[in-house]
């Protein structure tokens, strides 16, 4: 009886997984998805902030976008979790290292378990990698080093290139197969020397990470950045794009700068951007000839200017 019941349960699980079979990720139309009306955006007193460590938003049932709580770190990064049949890839691990104060791994475990339960799986391999090698994107990486069924892509440019199979970074475009869902990945340096852009043909989301987002695009190497912008624009000419997604919001809906390290941003615009904004920024940037801070109307370009510099004025001048 007991053995029979166990067998029945086992069969039921198998049947449930098999009922949908392998998940189909069609690419002939953009899989629908949504963004929240408002992301968590810090609070006047961080001490009294009761929001979760990250906001988990399911863009659709196979794509999760997470936002860091600004009361844990002002960066408030966006983190991407993209599921295929065989693997789920985690793009970025945020700004806080210690699991006891910012338990990213435990949260990712919950999100992965939720997806597995919904899709009749026991588990799925987790691939941990980064849009680029800055501390606000890899601080939580170490929380995963002893996680079962997990592949960590190293935190050096060489390890990243070897993992994804790049021989001609940044121009080369590689495919990374999550199991029926193949991401396109290529280089977009300029903000940081190992930055990657990725495109998901299933949702038609293009992730421009830290090189292009509503905020201060900190450009350490202008020549590399403008070349990366050109690659993005050309990609957008050739591929359908539903939304551009990225890793930060540092601007208010009215265009005002939320100065560096702001921890309360009640008037944020949407995170997602569109191709028209990308093109406008590229056209604006082509005319820039000298380092400086430029507001394009959509974003601010910190062209080889130190990130800690803000453009705030002294309100007390008399």
């Amino acid at each position, binding site marked *: 009886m007991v053995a029979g019941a166990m067998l029945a349960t086992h069969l039921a699980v198998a049947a449930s997984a098999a009922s949908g079979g392998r998940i189909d990720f069609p690419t002939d139309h953009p899989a629908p998805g949504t963004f929240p009306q408002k992301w968590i955006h810090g609070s006047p*007193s*961080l001490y009294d902030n009761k929001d979760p460590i990250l906001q988990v938003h399911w863009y659709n049932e196979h794509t999760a976008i997470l936002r860091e709580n600004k*009361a844990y770190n002002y960066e408030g990064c966006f983190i991407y979790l993209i599921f295929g049949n065989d693997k789920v890839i985690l793009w970025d691990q945020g700004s806080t290292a*210690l699991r006891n104060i910012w338990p990213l791994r435990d949260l990712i475990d919950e999100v992965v378990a939720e997806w597995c339960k919904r899709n009749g799986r026991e588990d799925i391999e987790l691939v941990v990698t980064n849009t680029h090698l800055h501390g606000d994107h890899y601080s939580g990486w170490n929380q995963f080093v002893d996680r079962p069924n997990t592949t960590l892509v190293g935190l050096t440019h060489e390890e990243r290139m070897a993992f994804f199979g790049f021989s001609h970074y940044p121009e080369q475009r590689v495919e990374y197969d999550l199991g029926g869902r193949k991401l396109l990945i290529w280089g977009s340096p300029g903000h940081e020397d190992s930055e990657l852009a990725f495109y998901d043909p299933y949702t038609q989301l293009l992730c421009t990470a830290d090189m292009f987002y509503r905020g201060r695009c900190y450009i*350490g190497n202008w020549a590399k950045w403008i070349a990366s912008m050109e690659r993005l624009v050309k990609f957008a000419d050739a591929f359908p794009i539903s939304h551009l997604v990225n890793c930060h919001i540092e601007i208010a809906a009215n265009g005002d700068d939320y100065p560096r*390290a702001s921890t309360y941003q009640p008037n944020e615009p949407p995170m997602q951007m569109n191709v028209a904004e990308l093109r406008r920024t590229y056209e604006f940037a082509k005319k820039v000839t000298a380092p400086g801070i430029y507001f394009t109307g959509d974003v601010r370009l910190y062209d080889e200017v130190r990130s800690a510099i*803000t453009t705030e004025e002294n309100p*007390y001048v008399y």
Partner: protein
Amino acid sequence: MSIKLRAVRLKLWFGTSVVLTAAVLSGRGEVTRDYALDHPAPGSIRFTWIYGSIASATNRDPRIQVQGYNEDTYLMRENLAIHWEGPFTYLLFGNDRALLIDTGATPESKYYPLRDTVDSLIKRWCKVRGKTDVPLTVVLTSAEDIAQNQAYAQFAGRPNTTLAPLALAEAKKFFGLSDTWPTGTATLDLGGRVVTVLPTPGTHKDGLSFYDPYTAFLFSGDFIFPGRILIANDKDYLASVNRLQGFVAQQPVKWIMGGHLEMTNLPGVDYPRRTTFKPTERLLQLEPATIDEVAKYAASTMGQSEIAVRSDFILMNRVGPGARALTRPPDLPPVPATPAIRPRP
């Protein structure tokens, strides 16, 4: 019945406390202290200020750190997890009056309960002194400084409380400086403890500093402090610093107690704006000789858009608060370099 204590003869302030407490417990009524010492009142700052945390949401330090410098002098800091400015406020007691200097960066009492904290301190102090209450005066080093005027309204309507007016003309009248601003000085008598009020416009048009002869502290707000001193009017600033030099030459000053702290413990290195985790802060207190160094650089930067980086402060003239010095003066000791932006080919 009033007992006069010759505090000058007491070597240790906790000794005073024991005597005062004993006086109350023995039911001998109200205690009066003689604040006229021939040396700065004893006290020490042998503790670490709360300095924020890696993740502010997990911070469980007190909302306001209170440190008794001595029985009649309290130093307070706002938790950086409530506001990154982490301003310092001060509560002084004389025989007849308490004085609160500055009110921090957060208005909401549920986040930053400054009034409740001051109430508790006053209540305990009154108990030790055998009093039922003591009048409170609230003053600001600048009524326009949004990092020091925010909890001012918490004291509106508080019984037995006088608030220095916010408008400059009214404030001048309140202190008795209408005819002599900014060269004159005024006094606030707390009852045997007479605090000097010094107009120090320059970082704010209504800037004030307060000198307490009992502790020999100069409370300077954001006029002089270990951080980025943001000059709002350089002529006024230099004139005020020069006047302060003259004042300090006539008075013993033990420490300058500013309203903010932004320097690290490395000379000339500061924490950028909005930093909420500052584990290696410089000491808050500045030596009086710092005024001379400030005066030197206030003179040399006059009329110019310039940032003077010094070991203990950064003087910023005609630039915004988020401006950063791109080079380090060669006379400061070397510190680990931050990566330079690659020059454009």
